[in-house]
């Protein structure tokens, strides 16, 4: 049963990722991204990270992809891109080498160390649920990082509002006031 879930979710992840790379229309690429994000959420559930699975669906598939789609519609770039143009002659072979090299190197490292990596106790052995463990860690050990996150979000929101604001034409006779 676990095997079936793993195979199906992995197929979703890989198919969605390939879709993001090969679809010519950005809207289709965004939908491929949704498929990948849902596949990763299924993997999180299979690894009993229930809270992260819920957040993954809400934040990534819900908010981030919708933001992508909004920007695609806003800019009107939802036309197909011509993928046959290759601006730098050997860019694609080199990119394939980089991608495949990353996979092979990381894969070799993972397979070679599969028995030497320390194996810890079961996460929920203490009887606490996943979300309780996560909350205890987040609000005790990582509480400073959690507080700094609020600063990050405020800065990001304020910066984006500033960046995307349409610049008003300054009146000719504005006096000296700023």
């Amino acid at each position: 049963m676990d095997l079936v879930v793993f195979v199906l979710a992995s197929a979703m992840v890989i198919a969605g990722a390939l879709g993001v790379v090969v679809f010519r229309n950005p809207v289709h690429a965004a939908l491929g991204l949704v498929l990948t994000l849902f596949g990763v959420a299924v993997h999180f559930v299979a690894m009993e990270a229930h809270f992260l699975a819920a957040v993954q669906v809400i934040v990534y598939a819900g908010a981030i992809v919708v933001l992508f789609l909004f920007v695609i519609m806003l800019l009107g770039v939802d036309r197909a891109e011509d993928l046959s143009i290759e601006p730098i002659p050997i860019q694609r072979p080199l990119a394939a080498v980089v991608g495949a090299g990353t996979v092979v190197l990381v894969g070799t490292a993972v397979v070679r160390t599969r028995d030497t990596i320390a194996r810890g106790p079961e996460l929920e052995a203490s009887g606490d649920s996943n979300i309780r463990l996560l909350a205890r860690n987040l609000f005790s050990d990582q509480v400073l990082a959690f507080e700094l996150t609020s600063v990050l979000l405020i800065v990001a929101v304020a910066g984006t509002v500033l960046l995307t604001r349409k610049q008003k034409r300054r009146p000719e006779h504005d006096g000296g006031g700023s």
Partner: protein
Amino acid sequence: MTAAALATLVPNSTWYLLLAAVLFGIGAFGLLVRRNPLVMFMCVELMLNAVNLSFVAFAVRFGDIAGQTAVFFVLVVAAAEVVVGLGIIVSIMRRRPGATADDLAELRG
């Protein structure tokens, strides 16, 4: 391998790490190949998700919840990053409609 042996096969953290490596490789390839800034951004999200997957796999393997806390922070930072990045892309596209990553080689507006 018989069907009965297959049924008892349980995916362990090594499988998840391999899947994360493949997902990261696809994301890196897409980032290098695609020229539309929006699609390049989506490929960065793919790579972030690959890292999230391996974080959770290691958290399960070590029995340490801190890995899942790290994923939580990655989610928050990714959300902020997407907001800022899309803001930059919107302001660039407003000036030069249809710009690809190659057209943005110089910083001059």
